[in-house]
């Protein structure tokens, strides 16, 4: 495309992707006219919901300017500190969002002993608690280290409201076609929408990108090994809310569990060569313990568009690519897309040329490929089961850009040197997340440094402190109840 000034953006799509993209572009680029084109008759999102990472909460607050009220009262989310994974050589491990292993010997120490209390987040998860107590009747909401679990309809509601408040022009309609020169979107109602650029946030259908001829795709079959999933939402009953997302190794795939306040989302991912759809669904329903539930089946096409931004159309979120929900990165990935799009538009004074577009595509592709490799290590190093599916998964899962990082880890372990091997900086995940996953998975390494007695002692004492903090901490139900009752959940919330 030529360098003409971008003044009007149309964001097309009917779910979280589109609403978040429209609201973010509008707020980050106040001079930009943003039109959201959504189709209210689009199929509703999967009620099972999804978990997210701390970056998402930060985005909602800082980039979109949402307040605790907007989020907690309307979105009714549940906080999550990370993951409990029945996975890898340890059988089970916790991975918290505040893992910090990139400096000193902490990674080596945690790999040997005390991984469960290697960070406040891990210690809290291991104790089944959410936030530390603060005085007799209050807790500290450590929202910088938590993600949020959302039910998709509620999250979409918050974001659509944000669009309206921020001055996004909201228009309903269905896309019928797309024509170039002038770039125009045709709608089924016979009208058309012209704009300078179009954001395709239509989810994995990628309707707009496909209409515009941007179909080149790079598959991740050799990294994301499962291709189908079934999901159900079951009632919670009296079961306590877990402060983490659960990942379980199954004989023919894996299962995830996302906590909501009154319900629990369950998903089962598998590969069709190893189990039939019916068997997998039956297994999931049995696990949910409610034979009346009907699972929703998903066909996954893991991979990414070769170029997210092609001509006047930019695919974001699921329209740009997809990987399995093994690391809860879906919305973080979307945020990265929208942020960089806003950034490129801002830095180029609204006149992004071909090179800026290529820079954007490079950043987005690298983030997808990092996510891909992150999933690959979860298959390659899951030795928790030795079934035919997992034998295939371990043999299939291949690393691309991060192969040096992983090979180096297998040699020298969680050394501070590893950060030099990250192909991008800071990347989607950052070195701490990579290290936390490899330590958690129990990826073996050959060289163990000698750790001095004082270092060991200091580590043990820190572990003890974190254990103590977790022991006295507050369970999720109390924190969530307090946050919803309090007008302003920050910075301190009084217990009921």
């Amino acid at each position, binding site marked *: 495309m030529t360098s003409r000034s971008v003044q009007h953006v149309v964001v097309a799509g009917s779910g979280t992707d589109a609403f978040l993209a429209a609201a973010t572009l509008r707020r980050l680029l106040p001079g930009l006219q943003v039109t959201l084109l959504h189709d209210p008759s689009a199929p509703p999102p999967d009620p099972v919901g999804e978990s997210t990472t701390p970056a998402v909460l930060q985005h909602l607050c800082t980039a979109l300017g949402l307040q605790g009220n907007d989020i907690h009262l309307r979105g009714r989310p549940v906080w999550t500190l990370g993951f409990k994974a029945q996975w890898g050589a340890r059988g089970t491990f916790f991975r918290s969002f505040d893992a910090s292993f990139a400096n000193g010997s902490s990674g080596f120490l945690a790999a040997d002993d005390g991984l469960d209390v290697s960070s406040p987040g891990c210690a809290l998860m291991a104790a089944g608690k959410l936030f530390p107590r603060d005085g007799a009747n209050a807790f500290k909401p450590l929202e910088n280290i938590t993600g949020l679990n959302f039910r998709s309809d509620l999250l979409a509601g918050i974001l659509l409201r944000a669009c309206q408040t921020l001055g996004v022009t909201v228009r309903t309609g269905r896309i019928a076609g797309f024509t170039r020169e002038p770039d125009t979107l045709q709608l089924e109602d016979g009208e058309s929408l012209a704009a300078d650029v179009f954001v395709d946030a239509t989810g994995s259908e990628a309707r707009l990108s496909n209409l515009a001829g941007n179909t080149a795709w790079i598959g991740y079959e050799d990294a994301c090994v499962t291709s189908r999933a079934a999901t159900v939402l079951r009632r919670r009953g009296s079961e306590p809310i877990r402060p983490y997302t659960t990942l379980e190794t199954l004989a023919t795939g894996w299962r995830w569990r996302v906590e909501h306040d009154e319900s629990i989302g369950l998903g089962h991912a598998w590969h069709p060569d190893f189990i039939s759809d019916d068997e997998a669904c039956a297994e999931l329903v049995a696990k949910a313990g409610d034979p009346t539930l009907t699972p929703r089946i998903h066909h996954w096409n893991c991979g990414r568009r070769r170029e997210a931004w092609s001509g006047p159309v930019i695919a974001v979120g699921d329209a740009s690519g997809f990987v399995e929900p093994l690391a809860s990165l879906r919305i973080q990935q979307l945020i990265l897309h929208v942020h960089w799009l806003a950034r490129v538009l801002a830095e180029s004074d609204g006149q992004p040329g071909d090179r800026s577009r290529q820079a954007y595509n490079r950043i987005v592709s690298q983030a997808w490929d990092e996510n891909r490799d992150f999933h690959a290590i979860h298959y390659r190093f899951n030795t928790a089961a030795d079934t035919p599916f997992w034998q295939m998964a371990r043999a299939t899962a291949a690393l691309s850009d991060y192969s040096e990082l992983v090979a180096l880890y*297998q040699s020298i372990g969680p050394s501070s040197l590893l950060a030099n091997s990250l192909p991008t900086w800071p990347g989607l995940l950052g070195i701490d997340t990579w290290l936390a996953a490899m330590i958690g998975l129990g990826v073996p390494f*050959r060289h163990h440094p000698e750790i001095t007695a004082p270092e060991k002692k200091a580590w043990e004492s820190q572990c003890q402190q974190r254990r103590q903090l977790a022991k006295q901490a507050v369970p999720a139900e109390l924190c969530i109840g307090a946050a919803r009752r309090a007008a302003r959940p920050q910075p301190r919330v009084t217990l009921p």
Partner: protein
Amino acid sequence: MVSFPENDAGAAVPEVRRILVLGGGSAGLLAALTLKRLNPALDVQMVRSTELGVIGVGEGTTAVFPAHLFQTLGISKEEFYREAQPTWKQGIRFLWGPREEFLYDFEFQYDRQFPGMPKPTGYYATGDCTDLSQATALMNRQKAFTTGPLGKPLIKGQYAFHIENHRLVECLEAIATRSGVVITDDTLDHAEMADGQVAALHFKSGERRTADLYVDASGFRAELIGKALDEPFESFSDALFCDRAVIGGWERTDEPILPYTTAETMNHGWCWQIEHETFINRGYVYSSNFVSDDDALAEFFEKNPKVTTKPRVVKFRSGRYQRNWVGNVVAVGNASGFVEPLEATALAQTIYECRWLAESLRVTGCRPDETNVAFYNRIIGIAWDEIRDFLAFHYKFNNRLDTPFWKHCREATSLGNYEGLYQLYREVGPNPVLLFHALPERPNIYGVEGFLAMLVGMQVPYDRPHDAAPQEREMFDRQRAQIASAAKGGVTVKQALDAIRKPSWQWT
């Protein structure tokens, strides 16, 4: 639980306990010192030949050098200043491109945005590009450092040195010996090979010496990496066309000691000026395809009438060995690769190599395996290629002269892996945020800053210059004036040298 057979591979790697460094120039000494000081349990011996000459050119360093010596190696500043007698430089002054001159420092001029300004600094530097950093403001006024309490120079920040080679070598030798490096005088006769590895080194004295790891610091001769192992040499000839230098100088009389190295455009190359305390060293780097040695000498004399020493001509080839760590041999310094000293990269690259070697040994308990060696070779290789491309920018955009040499440079120089960065610059201008993502590799050394300093310094055009409103411009100039005012009260190199030689001076 399933085990990974691939992971048992490293178990058989033998431990490195004894290291033999071949060569006693600055590279060999830095290698021996770094290895010994960072891994004191290692047995490090160095064999150097007094028969073989050294290039012995005065050295300019980058800011990596003092940091490595004083922080990483813990060498005493008192001793180093006393023995090596360095002078300070804050960067390089380029008589280069369409401007009369521009400055490159070791701080940040262009990878920054002044507080409150809508754009990064480069967008405002199309005309006047001075006083964008403390270091360049000092250089601009021929000052070495700002003045601290009691009128003393504040010797900190990203400064570097000019050092005379023989002083540096003597000083490092003494420190190395004291650190436990065993130094022997001998000349290599040949390397004894077995299974593609070095089995022993035979010396003219008849001595046969063995080690677990051999560091090839034999300079251009590359005795082990090149001659014994026959590792392929990757030429940089599509980016760097110079292959000779004529070197000379004169005793300083009343010239001020400048706080920078000067790089001046010449008809068929360029000329450095290195500021030693009592001596000024100049070297004309040229391409023998475009000028004869005699004509180069004539131009050198014409532009440097004060030269009193008999100039010598040095031949060189730019490039690097494909791998610098092969089996039990690691090449460092000129044995690993060479480029002309346009950015004073030689010692910095040597230190980079030594540091990574020492780290590779440290994190593996001195049992580096294939993975570590491959990692080392990758990052040293990309560091060399980054230097090549960085220097290529100097040639590609220097439109100061229209001689056949410079015309050829502008037409034929390849920007290598950084072509993409240049293309993005053409479109968006000096925007560090976007350009950062066009850097081809990690880790990198010069970052966006180095390349922007050249592009902005040589006024390389881009599509949409920023039209700053008068008020915006005024705000920008106010920030520059602030930086300048701190530099105005600074001290010169001479004053700083006097200050550190007072008995009352204390290093912190």
